[in-house]
């Protein structure tokens, strides 16, 4: 049988942070914490690895600028060169100054949208997705720490967490 998990509720970010530290000092396994707002430093405390979304955004930006330049090179230089206002149309590099604005916009377009889509996919966020916070109060003013009891005595663990300032403790269903 899987070991039991306790839902431990707090109502203050400072108390939560202290409680996380205390629970870790006892080697209790914190499975997840749900917060109504970003609590700074909590991810480091829980050893959550830094996110790489910024890196993906940079890569998407590179894709964006490549797509933009390839497209404009094909359209304006290769497929149908035209003399427009005397602007040189014989090679990409000569015509480049005119292409900077579009290339920039497309870089931003790709970097922003693809990063956000990656974020939504990784965090499983999309329309009609069912929310997974176990208690509706966690988007209001409650912080929910899920502690895996493991081989410890459940009542002992609960009493210890109670002493850290938890307002409510119940069993995860």
């Amino acid at each position, binding site marked *: *049988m899987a070991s039991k998990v306790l839902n431990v509720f707090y109502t203050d970010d400072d108390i939560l942070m202290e409680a996380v530290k205390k629970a870790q000092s006892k080697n209790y396994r914190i499975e997840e914490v749900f917060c109504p*707002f970003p609590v700074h430093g909590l991810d480091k405390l829980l050893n959550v690895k830094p*996110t790489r979304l910024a890196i993906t955004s940079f890569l998407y930006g590179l894709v964006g600028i490549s797509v933009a330049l390839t497209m404009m090179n094909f359209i304006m230089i290769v497929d149908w060169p035209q003399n427009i206002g005397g602007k040189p149309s014989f090679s990409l590099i000569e015509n480049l100054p005119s292409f900077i604005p579009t290339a920039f916009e497309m870089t931003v377009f790709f970097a922003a*949208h693809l990063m956000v889509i990656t*974020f939504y996919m990784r965090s499983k966020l999309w329309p009609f997705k069912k*929310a997974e916070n176990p208690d509706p109060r966690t988007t209001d*003013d409650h912080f929910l720490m899920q502690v895996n009891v493991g081989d410890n005595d459940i009542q002992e663990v609960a009493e210890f967490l109670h002493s850290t300032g938890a307002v409510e403790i119940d069993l995860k269903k």
Partner: protein
Amino acid sequence: MSHYEAPIRKPLVTGEKSYHDISVEIARPVEGKANKTWWIVFSISLIAFLWGLGCIVYTVSTGIGTWGLNKTIGWAWDITNFVWWVGIGHAGTLISAVLLLFRQKWRMAINRSAEAMTIFSVVQAGLFPIIHMGRPWLAYWVLPIPNQYGSLWVNFNSPLLWDVFAISTYLSVSLVFWWTGLLPDFAMLRDRAVKPFQKHIYGILSFGWSGRVKDWQRFEEVSLVLAGLATPLVLSVHTIVSFDFATSVIPGWHTTIFPPYFVAGAIFSGFAMVNTLLIIMRKVVSLEDYITIQHIELMNIVIMITGSIVGVAYITELFMAWYSGVEYEQYAFLNRATGPYAWAYWAMMTCNVFSPQFMWFPKLRRSIMFSFVISIVVNIGMWFERFVIIVTSLHRDYMPSAWTMFSPTFVDIGIYIGTIGFFFVLFLLYARTFPVIAQAEVKSIMKSSGEQYKKIREEQGDDAKLYTMPEQKPLPDFKKLIAEANTTSDSSDANTKTE
């Protein structure tokens, strides 16, 4: 704990508020019923919008000839309105992106509404070039798609095409930036909702936001990177709008100062519009504790600074016209200041350069009524700026025989009024259905910038405890609970150890 903030900074959230109070107060306009004022303003806006829609239908079905344009003045109100609306749209991203990069916490009370304003005004802006095409059903021709008439492509040398890319990138990126920030707040509304219909709708809108630690970590990183992307983006958009004019050879348009000058003007008018909207909104939905006098004052300071930049740009333009020695350029500016459109020029000068200078006086910039009046004056002035740039530069061109004046028809005016109506329809609907303040972010700055916590630190020193131990529910007997669950569920793992 690390909630220190210099005591000299004034509190951004006033009154004694718990986290729950914030949820309640921000959900109130959404959960409550609209009052009479809302319905009156909404009806007026809707009528204006429908009137504008009628004028658009008339324009499209009859032709651009229904406007006051003539063979000398081919651009007038429509492009004026386009630039005006795009300019207004700039404050939202500035507040949400640039102020985020500069870690200005005061942005959190106003960024949501400012971004909403951005999106709604860019929508209005986008209407004008599309209507001006005459055949709006062919608007997709501005996209680089192959077509059946041979591979005649769009022209990437043209600033008008750059505009297509700039405006659509700006609109779509602002939208996802806004929506990503909205997810936790929609989730709050979803979890508070009592009626199933509302719960369902906010459930869809919140994309199933749950608020895990990893989600929040990604959320903050995404916000930061989007801010980093949106900052150059917002500058590029109005730069490119100014290229529409600056890359031409029309005296009065052909100016290298245009990009920074347009960007400053855009921020100027955008902040004025934010002030107009928020001064009303904070009152109507009782959010004075979040959008404080200090917020209004800070926006007034931005208005003052950008207004002064715009003033410097006006004077630089005049100087360059004289200094360049180009007689056409000189005439264009002389004509602006003393010609038949001098009234428009001096209206612009008074509204944009003179009126913001009152903000040097702390008493005036802290006065809500005065800020409101100035915000309206600035927006009138910025409309005249675009009108002056566009129409006065065109109406007396190189050939005196072609000189003429522009007078708008009722259709020109109707479409403009219509977009104002459309804008307010969208904004009023937003104010009743969206969380108008980024409550999750406001909660995260409560301990550093909330009034009661600042007081505690003042009284007890910077290391004071910023919490009191809450009342705790007594613990249940878990072993009994588990045993009960096992006997009732009768599952296969019922008799394994529970120690």
